[in-house]
């Protein structure tokens, strides 16, 4: 009998790890989605540069995360969860959100910087993935999964900084996100840090709850994106001297739409995969997250499309804003996806689609140039997603013991009081504030050394030759890609 139980346990862990790996592969594929969206919504003369940023952000991010990012984010994750870890490997996980679905991790990942036990700041073990057996399948799968999540955040600023960002500045941004700023806030919410423990320290619900990262991934990426867009300044010709805006149309709408479809597909790994397991209660979280993702993405696309149809400058269902709406819904549901009922997912998505349109118009009014809508999608809807947990979390019994508390995650509209909402506000403000301010300073320094904004002459002819030494589209092959439209005469 004991042997049978051991086999069942082993198979369970294997199934969980398999799911996390597959989900991680789906999230990796989202790189293609980001690359296509950013290229489609920017000009042909920059396409080699934009594509390179979106490809190399993975290479740079992987190395940076392996060097120290993973260690900073998760180096202390087993310290907080050690007691639940033991009971989990004996077949009864007492805490829903634990990496222990993927096996017993023993003494690894237990070192970090913290104050008064529960105020964890940063992890300090696991650098270069050292100190692990080669059989540490669960930890390796976890690393892969978390790395592709980090890369989703790192690739967001390449969109808001597109068409005038020096490649060297991009490289340094990649290291900044993967090695430090993302792992820092990621530790606070997922690595056993102080935001996750707000339930135990300040009695705020289950502490900051973020199922797949509206805060950790999207608000972080969006905040870096906002900072880089502000420090870079708008593209030449984007705004006239009197402040009026000029549209700079993208060169390939099919790429933009196809990229959005790929992102939607990858999101089915992003959200359901964040259950980190499929056994027992976890399959419920997986399934619920999957349909809520589906519904919110669909709703976001609908509301953005209708908004542009009725209110937008062309009074037509605008393709690029509609796909931004889909992404907005997906970003907004990323935190609440396993906690809310399907009707709430639809509502969250509908609101997200409107938020992205309003934010895009607001950014333009503020003379901040975001060529692809990265900040409206990720920053504003990331914050909305974090807050939505505090409103709509339905007390899902499968979320009992989340963050080591003794209660299911319950929001304001389900009788949970304002505790959870306040914890969510802590998360939103902490992440948005710290990431934006630190990144703004970082980019200001880079710009001071001339490493950020490309020269005007390079920007005018297109970054492909000056930055890449290669044209994305050889004009001999595609003679029709030059446009007669030249915004603001530039």
């Amino acid at each position: 009998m004991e042997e049978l139980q051991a086999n069942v346990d082993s198979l369970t862990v294997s199934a969980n790890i398999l799911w996390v790996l597959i989900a991680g592969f789906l999230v990796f594929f989202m790189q293609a989605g980001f690359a296509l969206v950013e290229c489609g919504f920017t000009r042909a003369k920059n396409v080699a540069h934009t594509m390179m940023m979106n490809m190399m952000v993975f290479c740079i991010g992987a190395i940076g995360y392996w060097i120290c990012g993973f260690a900073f984010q998760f180096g202390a994750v087993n310290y907080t969860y050690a007691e639940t870890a033991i009971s989990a490997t004996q077949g009864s996980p007492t805490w829903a959100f634990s990496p222990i679905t993927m096996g017993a991790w023993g003494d690894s990942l237990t070192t970090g910087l913290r104050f008064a036990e529960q105020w964890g700041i940063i992890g300090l073990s696991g650098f270069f993935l050292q100190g692990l057996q080669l059989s540490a399948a669960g930890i390796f799968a976890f690393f892969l999964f978390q790395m592709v999540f980090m890369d989703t955040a790192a690739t967001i600023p390449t969109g808001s900084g597109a068409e005038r960002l020096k490649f060297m500045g991009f490289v340094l941004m990649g290291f900044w996100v993967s090695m430090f700023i993302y792992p820092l806030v990621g530790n606070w919410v997922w690595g056993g840090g102080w935001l996750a423990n707000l339930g135990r320290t300040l009695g705020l619900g289950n502490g900051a709850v973020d199922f797949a990262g509206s805060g950790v991934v999207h608000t972080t990426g969006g905040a870096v994106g906002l900072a880089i867009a502000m420090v870079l300044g708008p593209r030449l010709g984007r705004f006239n001297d009197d402040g009026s805006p000029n549209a700079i149309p993208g060169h390939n709408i099919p790429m933009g739409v196809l990229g959005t479809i790929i992102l939607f597909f990858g999101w089915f790994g992003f959200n359901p995969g964040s259950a980190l397991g499929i056994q027992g209660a976890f399959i419920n979280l997986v399934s619920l997250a999957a349909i809520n993702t589906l519904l919110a993405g669909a709703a976001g696309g609908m509301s953005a499309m209708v908004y542009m149809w009725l209110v937008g400058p062309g009074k037509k269902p605008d393709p690029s804003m509609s796909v931004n709406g889909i992404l907005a819904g997906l970003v907004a549901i990323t935190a609440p996806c396993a906690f809310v009922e399907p009707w709430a997912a639809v509502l969250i998505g509908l609101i997200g689609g409107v938020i992205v349109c309003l934010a895009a118009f607001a950014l333009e009014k503020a003379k901040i140039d975001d060529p692809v809508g990265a900040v409206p999608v990720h920053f504003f809807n990331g914050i909305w997603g974090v807050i939505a947990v505090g409103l709509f979390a339905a007390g899902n019994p499968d979320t009992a013991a989340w963050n080591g508390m003794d209660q299911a995650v319950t929001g304001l509209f389900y009788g949970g009081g304002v505790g959870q909402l306040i914890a969510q506000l802590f998360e939103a403000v902490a992440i948005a504030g710290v990431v934006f301010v630190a990144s703004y300073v970082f980019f200001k320094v880079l710009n001071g050394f001339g490493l950020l904004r490309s020269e005007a002459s390079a920007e005018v002819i297109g970054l492909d030759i000056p930055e890449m030494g290669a044209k994305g589209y050889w004009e001999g092959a595609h003679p029709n890609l030059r446009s007669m439209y030249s915004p603001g005469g530039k």
Partner: protein
Amino acid sequence: MTKKIEAFIREEKLEDVKKALYDIGIVGMNVVEVHGHGRQGGVTLAWRTSTYKVDMLPRYQLNIVLSDHNVDKTVDTICKAARTGQVGDGLIFVYPVEDVIRIRTGERGREALTYEGDIDTRRAAPVKA
């Protein structure tokens, strides 16, 4: 003696104009993609949060070199085939041509323009169906 017709027509009208010209025996022509506008000044399109003016619209420039006495019929044919009645149908310019040389044979002048079944031979000896 010899004239050149430059006809600026809508892109979607090219097939109609070609067919009409073949029917009357004009087959020598070339097409250039151009952008331009007349008095109407272009269109206003929307991209995300703002609008932009595209004042150079795509058209085809059809170039035909032909004998003087065929110009009127050719111009009429082009106009009928290319006309939609909407602003933006285009313009035709007619220029004098100094000389015409066929590269393959070295023929110059009138001989360089004529061939079996063209508009002049049809007038002289109508093509049997």
